[in-house]
């Protein structure tokens, strides 16, 4: 194994316990730049908790998360975002009262301080970038609509768009295709393949077809620990994995 500094994201010995229950237990894994990594595992394996720990939503009890050589466990959420980590939540998390344009504009990485926001001007650069991202997420015709008018799938795309506009080096997606229709799912896979090229992505997903479709490597979690790691083929044929997860 190479030096941890070579990885974009190095998670080492990460542990968090809630009232004595270790949701994530001495977890280590490494993600390369431009790698698409999928985390799978049965319910309660700690998948979402791992994302929460990386993005600072939950504080680690022990261990370290290094991103581009920078320790994240001591940073606040917005600092982690500014360092280049984007996070999509499981349920679409968008601003329903604002228009699609405003949703994307708020996520545009400029004017993030109080007075910066006060002085923020909607110039051509902003408009162009918003339009560019909107066309990527199939929402360009809806820019003026209030976000509450969108369908479930469109809301998921909007949130993905809100992350893309930040241009993060690491994108974390929690079940991006959950609750989508078959056609929406296909479009989402296409969208992700297109936008995921220039960055590392950490995806939690249950849909095995989708996982096989996009994953470079797969990490299988079980009871807060890594059960198996490698290519989808490798993981699928690992007897431990078959026993706890795929065999069900």
């Amino acid at each position, binding site marked *: 194994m190479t030096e941890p500094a070579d990885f974009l994201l190095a998670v080492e010995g990460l542990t968090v316990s809630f009232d004595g229950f270790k949701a994530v237990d001495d977890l280590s894994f490494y993600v390369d730049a431009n790698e698409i990594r999928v985390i799978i595992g049965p319910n309660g394996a700690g998948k979402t908790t791992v994302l929460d720990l990386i993005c600072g*939503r939950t504080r680690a009890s022990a261990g370290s998360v290094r991103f581009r050589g920078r320790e994240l466990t001591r940073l606040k959420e917005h600092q982690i975002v500014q360092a280049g980590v984007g996070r999509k939540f499981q349920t679409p*998390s968008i*601003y329903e009262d604002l228009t699609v344009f405003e949703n994307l*504009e708020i996520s545009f990485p400029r004017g993030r301080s*109080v007075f910066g926001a006060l002085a923020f001007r909607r110039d051509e650069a902003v408009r162009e970038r918003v339009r560019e991202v909107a066309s990527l997420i199939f929402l360009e015709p809806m820019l003026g609509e209030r976000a509450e008018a969108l369908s479930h799938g469109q809301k998921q795309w909007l949130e993905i768009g809100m992350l893309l506009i930040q241009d993060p080096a690491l994108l974390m997606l929690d079940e991006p295709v959950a609750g989508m229709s078959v056609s929406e799912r296909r479009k989402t896979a296409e969208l992700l393949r297109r936008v995921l090229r220039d960055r590392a992505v950490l995806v939690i997903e249950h849909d095995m077809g989708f996982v096989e479709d996009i994953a470079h490597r797969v990490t299988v979690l079980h009871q807060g620990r890594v059960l198996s790691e490698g290519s989808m083929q490798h993981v699928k044929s690992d007897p431990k994995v078959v026993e706890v997860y795929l065999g069900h």
Partner: protein
Amino acid sequence: MTESSFSRKDMIAVLIFAAFILIVLPLALEPFRLNLVGKYLTYGFVGLGLVLCWGDAGILSLGQGIFFGLGGYCMAMFLKLEASTPAATKIQSTPGIPDFMDWNQLTALPWFWRPFHSLAFTIAAVPLVPALLAFVIGLAMFKRRVGGTYFAIITQAIAAILTILIIGQQGYTGGVNGITDLRTLLGWDIRTDHAKLVLYFISGGLLIACLLLAQLVRRSKLGRILVAMREREDRVRFSGYDVANFKIFVFCAAAALAGIGGAMFTLQVGFMSPSFVGIVPSIELVIFTAVGGRTSLLGALYGTLLVNWAKTTFSEDLPQLWLLAMGALFIAVVVAFPNGLAGLVQENVAPLLARLRPRLRPVPSATVDAPKQGAVR
């Protein structure tokens, strides 16, 4: 200014309101009634702040009386010092200090009163002292992610504490009577009808200025972030914003606005007392805004005028019933029309206007919006 800063419709609505309070009311009302309206309008400053803080950002403060009172006390301290010249107070055992201090055996002016000899300091203190306290409260609460009901309860507790403090420290604050017997501002007698008329216009003009300022904040990206925070605080945080800073800012802004209102209140009413600081006035201020519409700046102002007009009218005849009526009104607003009068207007009058519009297209839009004035009032 971006192109979205002020739509023509917004500008017309503001002009109608300005014309209403600065032209219609002064012409229609006798001086006594106009002075009452002037008093109500000072609550409007608090309403503007509540729209930003509560309506937009979703932070319910049940302690705006604190900031209204602080602003009012700052102004009252200046006026009291001016009224307490050694010549005017020569019968006191210590001439030159406010009368209530003398009654409480104080022999020197306390240190925190001294800067209030200066009008410039006072004018700066009126928004800044409330904003500073709001900053401290905000820092302690929002950085620790205290919000929602807990925050409302804490502001309520602080309002109670401040009232008790003011009443208890009689020698420094004038106690339960407050600071009374205010006479002149830089030698200009503020008790005459003419002075009250002038102060009414100053207060009204200031209110319009604050309204435009609040509008500007709401139309900036900061305004949209406030709304976004109300809906999805985590999403805002994970879009790279330090949410606590935005909450502190809007809470301070609301406090500063309330402070200006308090100072204008002191000037027009001629005294300031703890009865404007505590729990009941703080809740009343929230009710005014709720009735008018907490997501509409103008709605909050009309609501404040309307509720206070009703309060004065009904409590002149049926003082006991008023409190019950006010409670019923609040419940009705919360249950039946959560966006207040402004929401009702938007739902019922705006579609009507939209239907009229195609026929009226060649006519300048001032005429198109004219029916709205009657509806809003």
